[in-house]
């Protein structure tokens, strides 16, 4: 007897295009709302989707809860970086940073509150903004990206106060060292530079690729991710993922991870990292790999820990990268489910 052959339903042009878009989507950035119940994700088409974490985590969650509550076109180019203040969502991509009100963003057809462009030197090509950093003590925002400078913008007035120059190639990532206050920046030129915000000067430079233990020339010298815990810093990218002691500028632990890492963060007494390869890696400070939890995207670009005090039930780790899906980990040991654009 012959097997029943499933009938093929022809896909229309619009459906095929949508499927292709989703296949080629990359989610670059995530940000959690101040109330802790919503997650914003920005992709390479310039769209931002707002997911309701509380709905997706609740016990009556259905398939629709894993879809965005609202999706809107925020930028013309990819949305590389997003941060949230206590009322605003700031997103940056191709050259400008836009601000959205969190309470407005959930309604359809929301418009940006303001948008600013830092003063760029070149006009040939608009440089991208790869990283945003909030400095709460000064109420300012630091932007860094394609034009190799760190710009500081005062959030009250919107003026650009400083431009810190020093990198020779574009900047990938920023981290804030609360005590001093100092900003760390890592760039394509392979150096991690520390800047003092009060004097606006570079105080320390660590050229990671020059250290033999961690350099990996076949991957390149670029620093893709940075995280700092006052005295300590962990960075990764082309060179291996390494833990540094800042005062002495020495690498203390090298994590044995072959694939270049694109995002790293300190969490409790662990270091979480993600990059090429589908797993979220959990490291002990001693350098041992505690766990490797697979996600659903073939490569990860951003991790976000929802530690907002207002919503303890939404305390999850979300990971996103080279796909249209955001993986949600309720427990660091396994992937619970995925939200999808």
């Amino acid at each position: 007897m012959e097997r029943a052959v499933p009938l093929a339903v022809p896909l229309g042009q619009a459906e095929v295009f949508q499927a292709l878009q989703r296949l080629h989507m990359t989610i670059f950035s995530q940000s959690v709302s101040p109330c802790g119940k919503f997650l914003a994700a920005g992709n390479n088409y310039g769209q931002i989707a707002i997911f309701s974490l509380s709905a997706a985590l609740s016990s009556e969650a259905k398939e629709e809860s894993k879809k965005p509550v609202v999706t809107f076109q925020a930028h013309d180019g990819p949305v590389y970086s997003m941060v949230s203040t206590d009322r605003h969502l700031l997103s940056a991509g191709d050259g400008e940073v836009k601000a959205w009100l969190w309470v407005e963003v959930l309604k359809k057809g929301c418009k940006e509150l303001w948008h600013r462009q830092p003063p760029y030197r070149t006009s040939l090509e608009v440089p991208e903004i790869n990283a945003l950093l909030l400095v709460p003590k000064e109420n300012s925002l630091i932007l860094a990206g394609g034009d190799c400078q760190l710009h500081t913008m005062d959030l009250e007035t919107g003026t650009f106060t400083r431009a810190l120059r020093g990198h020779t190639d574009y900047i990938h990532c920023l981290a804030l060292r609360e005590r001093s206050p100092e900003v760390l920046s890592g760039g394509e030129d392979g150096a991690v530079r520390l800047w003092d915000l009060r004097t606006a000067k570079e105080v320390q430079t660590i050229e990671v690729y020059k250290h033999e233990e961690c350099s990996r020339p076949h991957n390149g010298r670029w620093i893709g991710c940075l995280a700092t815990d006052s005295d300590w810093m962990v960075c990764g990218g082309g060179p291996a993922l390494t833990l540094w002691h800042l005062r002495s500028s020495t690498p203390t632990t090298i994590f044995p991870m072959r694939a270049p890492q694109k995002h790293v963060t300190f969490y409790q007494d662990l270091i979480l990292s993600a990059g090429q390869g589908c797993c979220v890696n959990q490291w002990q400070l001693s350098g041992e790999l505690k766990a490797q939890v697979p996600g659903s995207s073939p490569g990860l670009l951003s991790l976000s820990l929802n530690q907002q005090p207002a919503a303890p039930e939404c305390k999850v780790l979300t990971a996103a990268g080279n796909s249209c899906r955001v993986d949600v980990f309720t427990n660091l040991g396994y992937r619970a489910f995925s939200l999808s654009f």
Partner: protein
Amino acid sequence: SEEAEVDLRDPGRDYELYKYTCQELQRLMAEIQDLKSRGGKDMAIEIEERRIQSCVHFMTLKKLNRLAHIRLKKGRDQTHEAKQKVDAYHLQLQNLLYEVMHLQKEITKCLEFKSKHEEIDLVSLEEFYNEAPPDISKAEVTMGDPHQQTLARLDWELEQRKRLADKYRECLSNKEKILKEIEVKKEYLSSLQPRLNSIMQASLPVQEYLFMPFDQAHKQYETARHLPPPLYVLFVQATAYGQACDKTLSVAIEGSVDEAKALFKPPEDSQDDESDSDAEEEQTTKRRRPTLGVQLDDKRKEMLKRHPLSVMFDLKCKDDSVLHLTFYYLMNLNIMTVKAKVTTATELITPISAGYWAGAVGSGAQDILTLRDYVLDLGHPYLWVQKLGGLHFPKEQPQHTVIADHSLSASHMETTMKLLKTRVQSRLALHKQFASLEHGIVPVTSDCQYLFPAKVVSRLVKWVTIAHEDYMELHFTKDIVEVGLAGDTNLYYMALVERGTAKLQAAVVLNPGYSSIPPIFRLCLNWKGEKTNSNDDNIRAMESEVNVCYKELCGPRPSHQLLTNQLQRLCVLLDVYLETESHDDSVEGPKEFPQEKMCLRLFRGPSRMKPFKYNHPQGFFSHR
């Protein structure tokens, strides 16, 4: 006599006499007893005396007895008489009562009596007084007396009814007259028909002379009458469409009309045949059982029997190629099928493969499964074919009998014809391009040259068709298969682009809806290791450039250049990728591919994208 005596005597005294007599008798008897016991001769006279006395007493007793009897009798008679009287009165009373009851019933009946006249709907009083002529209504009399009023109203009713009956008779006679007139006119018209026919015949030579083949069209319509309903709907809608909108479509009917007529034999013949054949069959089955396979085969053939008539379409496309479609109707399955053939101006192409034409297989009979074996012979039962024939098979509610519907066919005719033409044309264009691609040349037309830089070093070395199963087996196409974009109606190709030691494999999915649905590429680069979209973000970006940004590559309508432009862009992308690869300091020697492309920046963004976007006319590469 004694009866009279009875009335005179006193019963009490008689009773005393009786008692006295009885006593005397007893005494005498006792004396006689005495005497007899004493004995003696003189006793005999005493005894005799006493005997005579007792006899006398006996006679008195007898008399008293008689009198008593008579008294009794009299008493009884009197009672009897009285009783009879009472009975008679009783009877009378009952009769009277009965009569009373009867009369009461009659009275109630009379009171309940509804006269027939109350059932007649009379007009209301006001109307009556308004309408009736005074000699009937007699207002002065009737107002006061209800009886007279009713009578008057009944009179009026009768009057009205008589009038209406007269009118009715009049109308009937009118109707008869008119019917007769109609008959006459009908006869006149029917005598007209043969005259018109003869005129038509006479005009044939004129028609031919003027090139207006009405007769031929008429003959077509005649044959069309024998078409089964879906084919008839198809024929009518297509002829209408062809005449009204599209001169490039011509419709004809092929096949044997006699066989079509023979399908509808009168039932009596077939019944006789059946009974004979049944008897025969029984005999044969007793002798020889045909094998199960043969039986099934026969049943299948019966199921798939085709109607002897078919409808043929000839669609002329702009470049002088003609698409021939022949539509058949499978009677027992109630579906239509189609066979296609393309003839171009220059060469004949073999029948277009099933994979190219879109449309799902029609639903309905489960025997569709077995149909796949017969498709080459019977034609393809596509859904669009059923829609053109007006047959609608809704998935949710399977219906047992589906009737051909003209409006369904009409609504789909134009779009289907246009789609067929575009498909044929794009398919023919593709064939020409394939011929060139197989020789390693990517044929980019001059009006699309601006999309690419002047110098493209990477070359297409191979272009082959691969099977659907082979595509599914490739390790870098899994995500396409999962999303459902790699069905079995698509065509699959493998292209190989080379430059130096770098080899780029591209697996291409060509959808039948080309070129409105773009071909989908999946890449695998072999250079310093194997790179696919799962381990290299730039390969992912390259795929995005050809798959998602395809609209820029469509070229002028009707976008037949899409595939070749995509391939050319792929070559350009490989060039950029190889030339912008950062030099590994640990490896000795110069770069294999020196950078010749003008780029503003080599890497951008967190995923370090290469500059894949070509800017015209400045000629440099930038990022999207």
